[in-house]
């Protein structure tokens, strides 16, 4: 019990410190120099930051959606089709991105894009599109883990019953299977979205000039020591996440 409290303190104290110091008047340093909101003001006048946030939101929306589509197909294949040609390779390919260091995924994808350009002689514009491809590849593995568990747990006799009552396979999928797995699809989408919003390394490799994502901008600011503004940004992100999770928890609770 004691260790548990200690463990949670370890998880939360650093984050709380970010929030507290975002209201500090001083530029850097831990000495408290009075309450101030000036760093929040500075944040809203930072156009590059707003642009990067919009880029990240766009990338995350597209990648999460693509990853859920492809990942659900893959999960269904892994759960329902016991044997097909190249199943072993397929299952390695679906699990490996989970543990592959990001820097390797990022570098190899960039080299792929460059090689495509070389071989096909076409100009591949590096920007939102290439980052979406990279993030989708990363997120598929996470989607598979979530959807696969749900598909494995579900009661197949419901589908059988629908078929026996004369429904066509497509209709069975849309009216029986999809509603059952939809909570899993939603949590997979949210996880993929968060992963994409959070990624610095893969985006740095695969994007091009002019399409910086939010983490890339944060990383640059940390290096140039613009700390109070980042504290303010962190506080906004943390509050957003906390409020969404609490809201989700409340809604779930009420439904029960």
């Amino acid at each position, binding site marked *: 019990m004691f*260790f*548990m409290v200690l*463990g949670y303190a*370890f*998880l939360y104290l*650093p*984050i709380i*410190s*970010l929030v507290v110091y975002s209201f500090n008047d001083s530029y850097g340093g*831990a*000495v408290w120099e009075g309450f101030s909101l000036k760093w929040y003001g500075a944040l809203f006048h930072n156009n590059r930051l707003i642009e990067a946030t919009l880029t990240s939101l766009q990338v995350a929306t597209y990648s999460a959606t693509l990853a859920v589509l*492809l990942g659900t197909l*893959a999960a269904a*294949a892994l759960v329902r*089709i016991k044997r097909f040609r190249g199943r072993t390779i*397929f*299952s*390695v*390919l679906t*699990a*490996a991105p989970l*543990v*592959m*260091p*990001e*820097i*390797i995924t990022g*570098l*190899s994808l960039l*080299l*792929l894009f460059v090689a495509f350009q*070389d071989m096909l002689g076409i100009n591949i514009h590096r920007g939102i599109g290439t980052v979406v491809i*990279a993030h*989708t*590849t990363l997120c598929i593995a996470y989607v598979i883990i979530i959807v696969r*568990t749900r598909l*494995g*747990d579900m009661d*197949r006799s419901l*589908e*059988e019953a629908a078929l*026996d009552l004369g429904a066509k*396979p497509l209709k*069975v999928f849309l009216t029986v299977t999809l509603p059952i797995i939809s909570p899993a699809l939603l949590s997979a989408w949210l996880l993929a979205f*968060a992963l994409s*919003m959070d990624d*610095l*390394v893969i985006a740095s*490799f695969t994007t091009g000039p002019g399409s910086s994502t939010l*983490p890339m901008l*944060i*990383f640059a600011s*940390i290096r140039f020591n613009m*700390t109070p503004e*980042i504290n303010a*940004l*962190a506080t906004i*992100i943390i509050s957003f996440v*906390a409020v969404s999770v609490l809201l989700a*928890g409340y809604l779930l609770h009420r439904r029960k």
Partner: protein
Amino acid sequence: MKGLRLSIVRSPLWIVVLPYIWLVLFFLIPFLIVLKISLSEFVIALPPYDQMFTWTSEGALSIKATFENYKFILQDSLYVWAYFDSIKIAASGALLCLAIGYPIAYGISKSPEKYRLPLLLLVILPFWTSFLLRVFSWMGILGPSGILNTLLLYWGIIESPLHLLNNTYAAVLGITYCYLPFMIFPLYVSLEKIKPSVIEASYDLGAKPLQTFLSVILPLSWPGVVAGCMLVAIPATGEFVIPELLGGTETLMIGKQLWIEFFNNRDWPVAASLTILTLVFLITPILIFQRFEEREVTHEFEA
């Protein structure tokens, strides 16, 4: 009964085609290209590597491959140390995660059922906030004018700021902090499956708490321990952000070295060779992880 059996939805084979093509194209083939570039020569051009396949004037295919990049890496103690450091830091991080994560996971699995989900949510909540910002928060704590040093100075425990940031310990701490949820989850899943009656039986047979832990609980949670360690140690080996922001110049992790070769030195062939070498010693743990994952999942379905 036979009629019922026939009506199982047969999942069409085409569903596997799209994700398969995607993963082969964007996950498998890139490694082959990395392998190819790792065997080519560095040239000052765009892209900065020499063509490996060229058609000679007689119309024959000429292949130019070199192992120079690998020789260069393996003879330079900098890179060898970087590999050594990466493994050391990733392993220490995984062990620390295990030490901190085990009591948390055990505590959650033993708490009343209605508290389990909120407690688990509290573990992931920090994971949903930005990874970079979580690393950054430690810079504010450990820095020379950071919270810890300010407090220690204020209480008169130290006279001059301690050098807490920009060393290997800070990097290990950062890895522990950021990867902790990846340890807690698999541990929780395997601990939750242990039936209370098994533990009671052990006590009834006269085992002491420590004995029960070592000979009953720990072996039963072993799958979680292995999965957790893999989930932490493998990606941490190639970590870039943490050694860059917390480790300082004394931490030579391979991910950082790779980044420098690629972005600062623009030496793509050497960066590619570093990638291949990293993959070579990560491939065994990755395959073990995949086997494990596969077995766990199928196991669960059969249960």
